[in-house]
């Protein structure tokens, strides 16, 4: 007798099979991506602007839906997922952007608390959790500041604090150091590595050759909508 419950579906955090994405305007951004990413991995996503990196991350976050193929994130089938289930997927994924996306009129504390209010946590829990993550990113003493009073690096730390506040299993960082000077970038990298060390899977799209070549991790290079290279402890570069 076959016991279906014994069949393991997968161990992967992200699983893509022949994923294609064509936008309504006819542009094909991804042209058959096959990739598996294990839970707890740290992956660099490299490629020229327009190669399909952004589409790749948008598909994982379900900001876009693939035109064909299969995508599973943390075991969830993103192709079959209904729109009203998307918010719950996003609660298990943190996102960090190049432009931080902080709310300028809110304090650092409020910006981070925002992510927890949305998921209807209790005020008591929110207060504690926000101070904990601010401590983790080294900004506990700046909780009452507004974003404009902080440096770029500090603002990105606030964004990271917001992204991890909800204990995500997966963190997507889209060029997190794109607007930062090299010294500040290293600080952010160190922070991301620490977060990765706690078991959070990290996918980081980047153009920084220096970071990729120094902190050696798995590198997925995308070019023309295809994975041209997938290499453990790889180097920067778009070529196969």
């Amino acid at each position, binding site marked *: 007798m076959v016991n279906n419950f014994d069949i393991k579906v997968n161990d992967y955090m992200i699983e893509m099979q022949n994923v294609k994405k064509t936008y309504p305007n006819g542009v094909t951004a991804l042209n058959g991506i096959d990739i598996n990413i294990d839970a707890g991995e740290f992956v660099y996503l490299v490629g020229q602007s327009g190669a399909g990196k952004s589409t790749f991350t948008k598909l994982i976050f379900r*900001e876009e839906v693939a035109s064909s193929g299969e995508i599973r994130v943390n075991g969830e089938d993103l192709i079959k997922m209904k729109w009203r289930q998307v*918010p719950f*997927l*996003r*609660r298990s994924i943190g996102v960090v952007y190049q432009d931080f996306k902080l*709310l300028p009129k809110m304090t650092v504390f409020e910006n981070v608390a*925002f*992510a927890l209010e*949305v998921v*209807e946590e209790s005020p008591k829990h929110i207060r504690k959790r926000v101070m904990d993550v601010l401590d983790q990113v080294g900004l506990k003493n700046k909780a009452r500041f507004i974003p404009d009073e902080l440096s770029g690096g500090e603002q990105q730390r606030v964004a990271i604090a917001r992204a991890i506040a909800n204990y995500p299993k997966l963190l997507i960082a889209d060029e997190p150091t794109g607007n930062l000077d090299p010294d500040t970038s290293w600080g952010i990298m160190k922070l991301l590595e620490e977060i990765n060390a706690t078991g959070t899977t990290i996918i980081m799209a980047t153009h920084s050759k220096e970071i990729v070549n120094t902190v050696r991790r798995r590198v997925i290079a995308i070019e023309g909508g295809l994975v041209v290279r997938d290499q453990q402890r790889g180097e920067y570069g778009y070529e196969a």
Partner: protein
Amino acid sequence: MRLRTVKRHFREGLKNSWRNSWMTLASIAAVTTTLILVGTFIALLMNINHIAQSIEEDVEIKVYIDLTATEESIDELGERISTITNVQNVTFSSRDDELQNLISSMGEQGSVWDTFMQDNPLLDAYVVEAINPQDTMEIAAEIEDFNGVDYVNYGQEVVEALFAFNNFARNIGLILIAALLFTAIFLISNTIKITIFARRKEIEIMKLVGATNWFIRWPFFVEGLLLGVLGSIIPIALLAAIYNFLIGSAAINQFDFIQILPFNPFIWQLGGLILLIGAGIGVWGSVMSVRKFLKV
């Protein structure tokens, strides 16, 4: 939804309205104007309807019986009429009754008819009332073909004109009300669009961190509700005051055949209706304008 979430949505909704206080005020003014007009139309329509109904209720069909009809066939005719569906009741009125009615309806001048007492030129008649006054014409047409009927009279021109006017007033009123409501919804949805526009970054981030659509929608829902409800206060008060004045005024009371609806409960119904319409357009306007910001 948890209580603190409900509180949060109300707090946010109020904060939004306060932050855009000029737009809020403009929308409330627009809703107020619209609702005064809509309320006036509704009050007029309800009263026209009421007056028309009370006149319609008095409409009756007179079936004049052929002179040559025997007593037996007269009874038979009465039976036949009463079996028509939609006929409420049938009463026999003899030619002498008819003459009496005629004379008394003429008042003092009626005495000239007294000479006819000896040789009554009128006919026996059946007085027929329809269950639904709108069916009067149909019933009259049916009776006209019966045996022993000389002719049928129900004040054709008056009744038809009355029904036509009533339907006309109702249709025009409804079209105007619909147009006004549409305008108000449009104005509210524009106001909310401005507050949404000011907060679209916030909405974007809310979506990124996994807020459900309803979580995002609620504060705007509250804001629309607030605009609608605040906008209905002045119209209700104003219409109540005007109606109260009209009811007491001599101009209306001099026609005793026109009976307008009594202040109580009419004004409560009208007020409730205006409040509901206000809240409805507020909520509809806001939800409509949030919709397109919720994609992705």
